[in-house]
Every structure is written in C-alpha cells, then in structure tokens.
C-alpha cells in the first residue's frame, strides 16, 4: 500500500499566520486520524524528509465521548478519533476549527461554550449534597429526551456548522440552548425556568437561529438540537405573553 498522505494546517501561536505541512505515513490497517498524528510524534519528519515539530492537537478519551479532538477532516467537522483512515479519501487534510481561536496547530480554545453554560444557568439548583431522600419520579419518555440532550459533549461541531455563529453575531449557538431546555425539563426546572428562558430571549438568544438545521446534521451524538430550539422558542413565546399580561 502507498503511504498515507497527510496535509496539516499549522499555526505556532494564536496571532501567527497559518501554514501547511505534508507528511507521508506508512500504511497500516486500522489507523484513525489520531493514530496518524501519533505516528508524526514518533517521527516528526515532513514528506520531503526535513525535520519539524510534532503536530499539536487536543485529545483525551479517543472514543468520542469527551469532545476534545474536534477538527476539520477533509473539510468535514468531526472528531479525529472516530475518523477512520480506511474510510477517508486521500490526501487526508486536517484543519483546526474556524469559529474558535486557534491555540496552536489543531488545538483551539472553546471556553466560550463553557461560558455560555454559565449564562443559561445549565444546572439543577439543588439544596445541598446531604441526604434529602429520593429524587422526583420521571417518566421513561421524559428520561429518554433528557438523556438524548444530556449526551452533548460540548465538542463544538454545531457551532462550527451554524451559519448564525460568526464574528458579526452574538448568537449563543445550539449547544447551550439544548442544555437550557434540558434543565427546564427537569422536575425542579420550573423554579429557574424563567431565568434561563429570559436569558435566551435577549441578544444572541433564540431569535438569532435562522433554522438552517446544520446543527443536527453534524452532531456526532445525534442530540435533538432542532427539537430543543423549537421547544425553547415555544417557552419564550409563552413567557413573552405572560410577561405582557402581567404588566
């Protein structure tokens, strides 16, 4: 088998210009993009035989549950660990996410996503961790919806694919809306639902969604993002009228 041609878009620091490097990795069955980059660590040499520094990228679990290794693989936003080389066309082209600041090479800073979770208060306001007895009863149907939303691993694919998330917009993006809906769904949700919903009725909130539906198409965990956005839209409308008549 021919060596695997790999093109990587690199960048030394956040404010430096990016550049491309090519590598040729000896073929072995069973490689994924992560293990290709490990081969570069072992032999950090460009395809032309000159030495370079090993490629830098984020990774942790390698089984698509931690959300770390999101990048563009052949133009598609996905996780490097589950990108199996035998199913990819070659050369394999790797680029960092574009909607988050590059830290170095393929590693990016996604802290805005964690900040968004603070904004929508994506937590259940428990009284404390002491023993207060069993939790509320929940129907299997509600649990299944909650579970589907709760599998969001903050990987950022949905923000990357959303046309409304860009440098001219303050749109919070699909992931955080999904988490707000998840927490509103919990039996204790109504206690803080108003605050969460209000946050998403303001600038950068629910009205900024243009219904392109790219988010559900790229989500590796099949989180029902458009259903969640629809639910939040209805919750916002209800709140709008409630607030109107309360005045």
């Amino acid at each position: 088998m021919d060596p695997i041609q790999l093109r990587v878009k690199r960048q030394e620091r956040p404010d430096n210009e990016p550049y491309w490097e090519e590598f040729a990795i000896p073929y072995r069955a069973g490689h994924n993009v992560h293990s290709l980059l490990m081969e570069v660590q072992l032999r950090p040499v460009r395809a032309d035989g000159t030495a370079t520094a090993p490629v830098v990228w984020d990774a942790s679990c390698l089984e698509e549950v931690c959300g770390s290794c999101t990048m563009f693989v052949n133009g598609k936003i996905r996780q490097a660990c589950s990108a199996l080389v035998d199913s990819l066309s070659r050369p394999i082209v790797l680029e960092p996410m574009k909607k988050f600041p590059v830290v170095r090479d393929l590693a990016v800073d996604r802290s805005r996503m964690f900040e968004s979770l603070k904004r929508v208060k994506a937590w259940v306001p428990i009284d404390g961790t002491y023993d207060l007895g069993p939790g509320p009863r929940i129907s299997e149907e509600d649990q299944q919806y909650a579970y589907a939303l709760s599998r969001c691993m903050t990987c950022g694919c949905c923000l990357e694919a959303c046309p409304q998330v860009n440098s001219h917009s303050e749109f919070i993006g699909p992931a955080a809306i999904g988490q707000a809906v998840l927490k509103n769904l919990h039996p204790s949700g109504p206690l803080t639902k108003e605050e969460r919903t209000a946050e998403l009725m303001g600038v950068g909130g629910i009205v900024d969604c243009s219904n392109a539906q790219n988010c559900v198409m790229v989500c590796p965990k099949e989180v029902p993002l458009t259903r969640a956005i629809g639910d939040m839209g209805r919750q916002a409308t209800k709140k709008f009228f409630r607030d109107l008549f309360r005045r």
Partner: protein
Amino acid sequence: MAEQRYIVVGGGLAGLMTTIKICEAGGEVDLFSVVPVKRSHSVCAQGGINAAVNTKGEGDSTAIHFDDTVYGGDFLANQPPVRAMCDNGPAIIFLLDRMGVPFNRTSEGLLDFRRFGGTKHHRTAFAGATTGQQMLYALDEQVRRFEAEGKVRKFETWEFVNALLDDAGVCRGIVALDLRRMEVQAFVADAVALATGGPGVVFGRSTNSIVNTGTAASAVYQQGAYYANGEFIQVHPTAIPGEDKLRLISESVRGEGGRMWTVRDGKPWYFLEEMYPAYGNLVPRDIASRAVFKVVFEMGLGVDGQNAVYLDVTHKDPEELTRKLGGVLEIYEKFKGADPRVVPMKVFPAMHYSMGGLWVDYDQMTSVRGLFAVGEVDYQYHGANRLGANSLLSCLYGGMVCGPRMLAYAKGLKRAAADAANGFVEHQRKRQADVYERIYRMDGTENAYAIWRQLGEWMTQHVTVERYNKNLKRTDDKIIELKDRWGRIGLNDRGRWLNQEVSFVRQLWNMLELARVITLGALARDESRGAHYKPDFPQRDDAKFLKTTKARWTSDGPELSYEDVDVSLIRPRVRKYDTEKSVAV
C-alpha cells in the same frame, strides 16, 4: 490567621465532588486540570454505579453489597471504609438523581437497576451506557454554579508538577505548569487533594484516556508519599483493540444478557457459563480475563485464529438494546463498522483500572500531611480486584469524605499556609522551572514517544493477566534501561507555547518510576490474589500476603514494606465463582 485555601487537582468525579463539598461548607477552591474538567476521563465510564437500593424485591442490602465488594476484592481492602461506602450508596444515587442525572427509569418512573459482575442482585443504576459521562456532567454543572458565584477558580490546561512541601515536609500547596505559556508557578494552600485518576498510559494502550499518565501520583511518590498495592492492575475482559487505544465494551453488555463464546468443535462454546455455572458471564473481571487467556492462548480457540472471542447480544431485542446500551454499541459500530445487534462483537482483554494508588488513611490523607488523594488515584476501596460499577461509587464517596476532612485539617492548622509560606515557595518553584529548562535543552537521539511505546509493550506483555517472576525481573531491567535512554532524549519541539512534547517528557519519567513500583510490587508478591495472578503461585497466601504493599521512593528504586489489612468486619474466606458464595460469618 489568613483565610484557609484549598486546591483540588483533577476535575473528574472525585475531584468535582471534593470541590462541591468544600464550597458547600463555605470554602473556596482552586481547581486544576490538564483538560477542561468536562472532558475528564470519568466520561468513559459506561455501565453504571452500584448501590443497594433494593427495588427489585431481591432482598438486597448494603451489607450484601459490602460482602460482594470485599469478596470480589479478595479481602485485600481495609473493611471499615468499604462498609461506609456501601452504606452511603443509596443516598449517593438519590443525590445524583436530584442533580438531574438522566438515569433510566422503570414504567412506574422509578430508578431502574441492572445486573453487573460479581453479584447476584440488580444493583447498578445507569444512564444508557454513558453513566460516567452523565454523572460527570451533573457534577460539572454544580461546580459551574459555584464558579459563577466566585467560589471556584478553574485552572484548566494546567498540569500538576509536584507538591509544595515546607521544611517539616507538610504540603503547603502545589507547583503547576501552565501548558499554554509553559510557565511554572507555585500556588499556596492549606490542604491539597489529588484526584488525578489512574495510570493506564503506563501500559501504552489501555481503555484509559491519554491524560491518565499517573504523572501526579508518581511525582508525590517521588516526594515521599507511599504508593500502595501498585501491583493490582485490573484487566477488563471485553475491549476492542485499536492502533491508538483499546476501547472498552462495558460489562453492562453482559449485565443485560450478553454472552461470551468462541467456536469449539464447530459449535459455539459459552465458556464462562460452563466454567463458572454459578455466575456465568457475570464473574468478576479478573476471572473473565483469565478465562479468555486460557481459551485463546492455552487452548488455541481464538475466533478465526485471532486474539479475540465473541461477546454476543444478537439474541436480544434491538430496541431495548438501544435504550439500555446504545452508547456502547455505538462505539463498536463507529470504530469497527459492524452493528452488534446483528453480528457478535469481537473482543479481547485490556488494561483498565488500577486498584492500587496513593496510600491514604480513612480521612483520604496520604502519608504527606496536608496532601489528600481521592478517586482512582487512591488505593482505598477495591482491594485486589474492583467490581464493575463500584468505581463511580468510590469516586463520589471518596470525594464526600475528602472535602470535609480537608476542611477539618486546614482549620486545625496552627499556622495557615499563607502565613507559613516563605522562602521555600519560590525556591521550589525555581527548582521545578529549572527541570523544564533542562528538558528544553535535551538534544540526544532518543524519541520520548518511542520509549513510551516500548514501556507499554513490556508492561502489557508481562505485568497484566499472567505474571512470571522471570519476566517481571526482565521487565524491571528493561525499565531501568528505558530510564537510561530517557536521559538521551532529543527534543523535536522547542516552542515556548503549548509544547506537548516537553510536558510529555516529564510525564514519561514519572511513568517509568511508577512502572517500577507496579512491576516490583508484583515480583515480590508470591501468591495469586484477585487481579494479581502468578501461575507459579496459584494460591492465595493469607499468612504471608494478606497485607497492603507500601512502596517508598528511594534513589535505588522502590522500597517495599507491608501493612496488615483491617479484616475486622468479615473474616476472609475462599473466593470462588463456580459455586454460590458461602455466607459471611
């Protein structure tokens, strides 16, 4: 006296629970993690969490959970903390439920429970087959709430370098490396908890995340903390081999009725069911892994002549499989390209968990005063073998002990760290910064990642399922050779910004130190107990080895000593799974 300060290193389940407990009592925490805490290795836990809630009319109790755990651990765990953990199980499940963990439900809307290995009871609560991920997210959210209130300061993409020890050897904070700026800083605190997880990466490829290098545990071991029971390494029977990692296929697959088999005389042979009629496919992991080794290597019955056996759920209802096991079946589908609902999975054992870890007392404090350890990095709860779904429980319970004990310890200090901190802080920071400067200057011919791969191959081949003294000795010689080669590493990246190679070189040294603890602990223990199995010494030897191994760092290698195990609650008895467990006396 200055206000007490607390540091927690590691943002998995144990670290987050410790943090929550401190904040809830009014303390403030500096939380350090190499990855954003939501990406910690706890996300990989699949099958569930044990607690004897007894909702299935089986007469389960926390006492039976305790006995199963001690028996499953081959009596090596000190019993009082295990008893306390099991007794607290139900309350912990209820707490997680209140936090919003989407546990699977019964038709009545109650928590559902399933079977797991080493027990006869439905005792494992689960959220699909991504229970650890769901639990981590719930705790992450609670910590974010404290962060929004200003009670938690997160230092994500920071690496623990070592403990800041004062002249009396008391821990007064930490030295840490900012992985982006590559700068070393000191942080003063009255109490420090390490919740840094297991050492899977020492074995090269394992089911662990690549952040599980054991580097923090090894660093404090080299500073004088005891490392206990290092030789007890759990090999999980069912994983899918890969180039980069060995991906876990959860024990819950068997809990939900999955069967292991291979082909013998042209017919399926359900070897676990035949060898262990009482527990069948739900024997503990050490037993199942040895059975797979026997079938594949001794009998030559691997599937298609490969190192593999079948794990089969094709007889189950596909819709129910998706609801209860979707997350794990999806991993097989994505990484192997076949649907386990239709085709039996091909699996093989893989290094999975370390029962050993930093020695701690019942307050989770290590042998270094002021330094605590909690979660997989401690050795406390699982003895010689951990039962499935007990790790999540031990992380949470350990955190519930650790947080309050840190507060009590710090409040009892005569001098706060901030007052006691003087010249030694900057001196120790500078020393560690100098270590990194020396790494930056390494210009030999060796590649750090190549040394690591060799370490992994040797450890996996000789220090996992079957251990022979001759091979353990050779492995230790090899590790010493690799340490020598470490000194001849040539750095390929001299960048001063997010230089992953530089931090890896330091981790690698720590991995080599820890590898010796694991290997020499195994060499010295001439018996078989739980996950530690020597074919030349097939019996458990309570007279000599019903003892905790304690390793102390010396410049000539680990010095081993032994400590009696507290067996005051359940008298040790023979552990076997082919027949029903005898009743505890």
